[in-house]
């Protein structure tokens, strides 16, 4: 009798979980379908809009907002001189560059002083609307050709703290936060400023663009000379992952003004608004998402119609983790950042005061971004347990798995199609085939690693295991011999 009751209970749990996973999966598929439609619309609309405000119009215009690019640098002596040269070359008429030396223990600062002929000036009374670690000195170049460069030397406080120091010191309307080791497209600023020029009834608080992966590409004078797909599988799959996240995630959300995250590696913000919310939060590793949410919350609270937008173009290139260990560390950190941010702003959950953000966007992030690894992990556990209990009909399970796998392949293939159709980066048959293969291998070879990293991150948060940013050993892209021009 007891055994029968136990079996009934297992069946009961089995069916409840089955329906839960089915419902969750169906919601996710429906969201992806919506995302494809929205993303296509968004890309087309942006292309049409761009015809009426071309880069050449902006580059010759006066009265456009001035921009400061802020790049924190910590122990980057190997690459800092070249990276600064590349950042100085960005095309924008009203442009300043601030490098924040975040307490480097190597000779990063000295290299900058020597190469760019920097001199320090009095920083006794620097105004710091956002509190940061101590700023030691401010440097500027004696050379006319580097006059838009400022270097802030401060005590180590982390990336967010360094960004805040840069934001404090900037005197422009817009600030672009990036990493010193990112390769930025030369006309990126001209494109990023477009939404600020064109919006008329909503204030643009932040603008992002797609970030591409540059492992094994050829870089010359800080410019991507020849974009290549990475040689190894892990970064190659990340190329597909970034394309899909950008098209089916960011672009789709941008179309319905639902963007809450502008990547910390490349985000343009209205400086005054960032100062109003006290800058980046230095206590979380998910500082970009946290700032995005805080900015939107602030705008809702002061009742100013606003927008966070994404541009349908890859304007920034970065190196992706090249091996499993680094990838797990990165995803562990992202998961912790997400957890921290979601916890910090839990008051948003179905909070009508914050309108769409409280009712839809935040709950989406909670259920489908924060929740996805947990659901996947539970699914895996259930599969093992119910297999042991002999409750699984393998014929149906395999067919179901194949259907879901194919559906995933379709979403990835459509993303690649939209990307190839609209952007010029990967345009040879070989490259597209490689991308497709990477996309089809992803669920078996890559996705389990991601889930592992994410679950590890959540575990650390739940059980209070201390962990920081972790280091990423960069393999580097191929750099052509330096030329003077």
């Amino acid at each position, binding site marked *: 009798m007891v055994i029968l009751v136990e079996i009934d209970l297992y069946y009961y749990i089995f069916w409840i979980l089955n329906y839960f996973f089915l419902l969750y999966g169906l919601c996710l598929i429906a969201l992806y379908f919506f995302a494809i439609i929205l993303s296509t619309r968004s890309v087309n609309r942006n292309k049409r809009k761009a015809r009426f405000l071309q880069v050449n119009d902006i580059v010759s215009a*006066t009265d456009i907002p001035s921009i400061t690019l802020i790049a924190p640098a910590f122990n980057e002596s190997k690459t800092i001189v070249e990276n600064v040269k590349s950042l100085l070359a960005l095309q924008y008429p009203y442009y300043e560059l601030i490098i924040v030396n975040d307490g480097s223990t190597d000779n990063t600062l000295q290299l900058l002083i020597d190469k760019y002929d920097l001199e320090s000036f009095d920083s006794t009374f620097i105004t710091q609307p956002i509190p940061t670690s101590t700023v030691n000195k401010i440097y500027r170049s004696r050379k006319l050709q580097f006059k838009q460069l400022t270097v802030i030397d401060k005590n180590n406080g982390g990336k967010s703290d360094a960004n805040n120091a840069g934001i404090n010191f900037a005197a422009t309307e817009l600030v672009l936060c990036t990493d010193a080791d990112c390769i930025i497209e030369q006309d990126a600023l001209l494109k990023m400023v477009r939404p600020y020029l064109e919006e008329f009834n909503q204030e643009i608080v932040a603008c992002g663009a797609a970030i591409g992966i540059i492992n094994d590409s050829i870089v010359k004078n800080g410019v991507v000379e020849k974009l290549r797909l990475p040689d190894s599988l892990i970064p190659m799959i990340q190329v597909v992952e970034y394309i899909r996240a950008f098209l089916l995630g960011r672009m789709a959300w941008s179309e319905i003004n639902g963007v809450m995250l502008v990547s910390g590696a490349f985000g343009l913000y209205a400086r005054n608004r960032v100062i109003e919310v006290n800058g980046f939060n230095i206590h979380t590793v998910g500082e970009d998402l946290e700032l995005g949410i805080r900015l939107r919350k602030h705008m809702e609270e002061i009742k100013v119609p606003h927008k966070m937008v994404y541009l349908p173009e890859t304007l920034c290139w970065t190196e992706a983790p090249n091996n499993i260990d680094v990838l797990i560390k990165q995803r562990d950190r992202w998961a912790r950042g997400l957890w921290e941010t979601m916890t910090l702003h839990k008051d948003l959950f179905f909070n009508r005061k914050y309108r769409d953000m409280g009712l839809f966007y935040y709950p989406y992030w909670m259920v489908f971004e924060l929740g996805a690894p947990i659901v996947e992990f539970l699914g895996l556990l259930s599969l093992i347990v119910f297999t042991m209990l002999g409750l699984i009909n393998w014929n149906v399970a395999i067919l179901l798995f194949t259907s879901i796998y194919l559906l995933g392949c379709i979403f990835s293939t459509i993303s690649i199609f939209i990307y190839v159709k609209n952007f010029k980066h990967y345009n040879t048959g070989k490259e597209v085939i490689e991308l497709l293969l990477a996309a089809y291998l992803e669920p078996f070879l890559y996705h389990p690693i991601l889930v592992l990293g994410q679950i590890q991150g959540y575990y650390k948060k739940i059980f209070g295991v201390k962990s920081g940013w972790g280091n990423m050993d960069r393999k580097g892209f191929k750099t052509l011999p330096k030329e003077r021009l």
Partner: protein
Amino acid sequence: MRKALVIQEDIIILKIIERLVILNQYECRAIRSINDLDIEDQSANFDVIISDILFEGIAPLDFVFQIQEIILHKSLIIVTNMGQNKIEKEILASQNVRGFFPIPLDMDNIQKLIA
């Protein structure tokens, strides 16, 4: 024959300036990017260079300074889309430039300088 180097990304502007230069009795090398420069260009002594300042991998002002060192020439004329007063002041302050023309431009002004 006098020698001129024209560097403009916009092929229409490039071709028009090239014709103007040729009709003013110059031997003209017209290229669209500084990446198209070769070793021979570096040793040729140009009478005039008519160039943009917007190039990949080099800041506008840095370009004006560096081209002095890389390519021998007598005078440098800038024709660029990024022609705001602020940029013009900075470029002219370098004292390396004979003329600065923001686009749109009247080609007659260039003709006066190269005639």
